[in-house]
C-alpha cells in the first residue's frame, strides 16, 4: 500500500513539474491529465471511490477535454513562444520554495504522523446520503452556478460581430 502511495507521489510531482515546464501547451495538458489520473488514484487509496470516479469523469473527462479542444482550436495560430524571463523565474522559484517551506514548518507542530484512524469508505451511497441531506441547498446552488456558467460561456463565446477570422 505504502509503495503504491510513494510511486504515485513521485508520478504526481513529476507530472506537475511537467505541466509547468513543457513549452508546448498540449504536452502540458497531457501531463495534467496524467496528473489528474494520479490524483484520482490517490483518492482511491484514501477509500474515496466516488470522488475518484467523479475526478476522472469531471476533470479528466470534461474539463481537460475542453482545454484540449480549445488548445487544438488555437494551436495552429500560436506560433509565438514565450521568451524566458529569469527575473520572474527566480522570483517564482523563491516564492514557491518559501511557500512550501513555511507551510511545511507548520506540520511539525500541528500533526503527528499516526496513520488515519477511521475506516471511512467514500462510497456512492455514503457520499450521496450526506450530499442530499446536509448539503442539499449548496447542491442546488451549485446547479444554479453551473447554469449561470453555461449561459455565460454561450454568451462569451458566441461571435457577436465579425472580427478577423479565426
Amino acid at each position, binding site marked *: 500500500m505504502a509503495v503504491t502511495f510513494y510511486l504515485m507521489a513521485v508520478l504526481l510531482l513529476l507530472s506537475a513539474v511537467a505541466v509547468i515546464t513543457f513549452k508546448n501547451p498540449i504536452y502540458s495538458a497531457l501531463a495534467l491529465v496524467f496528473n489528474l489520473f494520479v490524483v484520482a488514484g490517490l483518492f482511491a487509496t484514501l477509500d474515496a471511490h466516488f470522488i475518484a470516479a467523479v475526478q476522472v469523469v469531471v476533470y479528466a473527462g470534461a474539463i481537460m477535454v475542453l482545454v484540449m479542444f480549445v488548445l487544438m482550436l488555437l494551436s495552429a495560430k500560436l506560433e509565438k513562444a514565450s521568451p524566458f524571463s529569469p527575473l*520572474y523565474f527566480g*522570483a*517564482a522559484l523563491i*516564492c*514557491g520554495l*518559501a*511557500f512550501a517551506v*513555511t*507551510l511545511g*514548518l*507548520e506540520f511539525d507542530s500541528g500533526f503527528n504522523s499516526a496513520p488515519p484512524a477511521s475506516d471511512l469508505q467514500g462510497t456512492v451511497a455514503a457520499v450521496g446520503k450526506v450530499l442530499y441531506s446536509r448539503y442539499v441547498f449548496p447542491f442546488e446552488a451549485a446547479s444554479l452556478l453551473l447554469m449561470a456558467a453555461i449561459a455565460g460561456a454561450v454568451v462569451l463565446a458566441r461571435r457577436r460581430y465579425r472580427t478577423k477570422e479565426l
Partner: protein
Amino acid sequence: MNQAAISATIWPIAFFPLLGALLAYVLGRKERDWAGIIATAASALSFLWVVKLVWALPEAHYFEDQLFQWISLADLKVDFTFRVDQLSAVMCMVVTGVGTLIHLYSTAYMHEDEGRHRFFAYLNLFMFSMLLLVLGGNLMVLFIGWEGVGLCSYLLIGFWFKNLAYAAAGRKAFVVNRIGDAGFLLGIFLLLHLVGTTDFVALQPAIMSGNVALGTDFYTLVALCLFVGACGKSAQIPLFVWLPDAMAGPTPVSALIHAATMVTAGVYMLARMGFLFVLAPAALAVVLVVAVATAFVAATTALTQYDIKKVLAYSTVSQLGFMFMAAAAGAFWVAIFHVVTHAFFKACLFLGAGSVIHGCHHEQDMRHMGGLYKKMPITCITYGVSVLAIAGIFFFSGYQSKHAILGALEHWHNPHLKEWIEYILILVKFTAFLTAFYMTRSFVMTFLGEYRGHAHPHESPWPMTVPLIVLAVLGAFGGLALSGSLGFSLEHYLAALNFGAAAEHHHESIAAALINSWTGLLGVGLAFVMYTQLKELPGMFLRLVPPLSKLLSGKYYFDELYGAIIVRPLEGLAAFLWKVVDQGMIDGMVNGTAAFVDATGELRRITQTGQLRYYALMLFGATVFFIIFYYVL
C-alpha cells in the same frame, strides 16, 4: 358646532375643479381655447353642486362626507373629511360663484395669451385648493388647501415668469406666506399635542370645556400662532408686503385670489376657530390692534398710488383689516359678512380695472387714463357702483357690512383695550373716510376728465362685461339682501358663530342710515371736488407736509425696513455660508479628498503593470510574507 351631522356627497364640489385643471392642461396643450371652456364649465358645475347642497341644508345641521382615513399613527387618527355647515356654505357660494364669473371673464381677458391652458389649469387648481380649505373638516385638510392656494397664488403671480420682477413678486409672496404658515403649523401642532385632535367638531367641545392643562395661556398662545398664519395669508401687518407686489399676476387672478377669496382665508380660519379666540381675549386685543393699524396704514398708502391695481391692492389690505376688526370684536358673522360683500365689490373693482387695462392696451398708470366713461360705459358704471359700495354709502352692500363692524366695535366687551376703544373707533371712522376718498380718486382719475393716454380704449367683450354687471348688482344689493331686510339674515344663518357675544339688533330708519354713512359721503364728495375742480389741491396738500408725503409715497418704507433688518443680514449669512463654509470648507474637503486620491492613485499606478503574473507574484509573495510574519516572527 352643536349641530347634527347628515352624511352627503360633498366631494364632487372639489373634484370638478381638480378634473378641470387636469383636462384644461392636457387638452389645452392641443387646443388652447378649450382650456377656458373646460375650466369655466368645471367651476360652474362646482357652483351648481354647492347650490344644490346649500339649498338642501337644514338649519342647525351640517353635511358630512368622510372620504378615507388619511393618517393613522398610533393615537393620531386623521380622517379626510369634508363638511358643509353654514359657514362653509357661505364661503363655498362666494368661492364658486365669484370664481365662475371670474373664469368667464378670464376667457376673454386671456384670449391672446399663449400659456392660457396653463393659466386655466392653475386657476382651477386654485379653486380646488380653496374648496379643500373651506370644506375641510379638520385643520389638517384645511392646511392642505391653505398650502394649495399658496402654491397656486405663487404660480399665478409669477404666471408671466419671463419677467424677472414678476417672478420675484411670486417668490416674495411665497416666502412671506411661509413665515405665516410656520406660525399656523405651530398652532396646529400645539393643538394636536395638547388636545389630540384637529377636527372642528371634536375640537370645539374640548376647548370650550376648558379641560386643557395649560388653560387660558394655552388658548392665547394657540390663538396667536393661528393669527400669525392668518396674518400671512390675509396680508396683515407685518406680513402684508407681498400683496401689493402680487398685482404682478394677471388681473383676474388679482380679483379672484388676492381680493375675493384666498386672502379672506385668514378671516375664515379665525371664524372657524372662533370658539378658541373668544376664550383668548388677549389674543383678540392683539388682533384688533394689528387690524386697525393695517387698515389705517394701507388706506393712507393707497392715497398716493397711481397704479390702478396698486390702489386696489392697498384697498384690499385695508378692507381685510376691517374684517379682522370684526373678528377681534367677537362678531365673526360680521367678519364673514364683510368677506362676502367685499368679495362682490372688490372683485367687481378689480375686474373693472382689468377691463380698463385691457381696453387701454395694458396701461396701468391712472395718470395716463381719464375720460373713459365715454369709451367704456359699462365698465364705468359698474366701477362707480362698486366705489360707492366700498365707500360705505347707504344702501350699498359696503355700508351694511361696515356699519355692522362699527356696531360690533362699539360693543367691545373685551377687558383689554376697554379704555382705548373710543379712540380706536375714531381712527376706524377716519380710515373709512380715507377709503371713500382714495376710491373716488381712482374713479375720477380713470373715468372722468379728458383722456391722457395714447392708446385707443374700447369697451370689453361680453364675457368681461357680464361678470361686471352681475358683480355690480350684487355689490349694490347684496348687502341689503343679507342683512335681514329682505327676509334672509346672514346673522341668523351664521348663528352658530355666535359664541355668547351680545347680539344686538337695532333697526334704523333710512334717514339714520344716511346719516350713519356720513364718513363715506364725506370722502366721496371731498375726493370728487378735489380731483375734478381743485386739481392743485392734492399736490399742495402733499407739499405742505413733505415728510408725510414722502412717507406715504414710500409706502411707509416697509420693504426697505424688512430689507435692512431681515433680508440684508440673511443675505450676509448666506454669502458667508456660500463662500466660506460651502466653497471653502465643504468643497475644499471634497476636492481635497479627490486630490488626495488622485495623488495616491498616481503613486499606485506604478504598481499596475497589467501583467497577470506580476499580480500573481504579488499575491503569493504577500501570502508568504504573512505566513512568515505569523509563524516565524
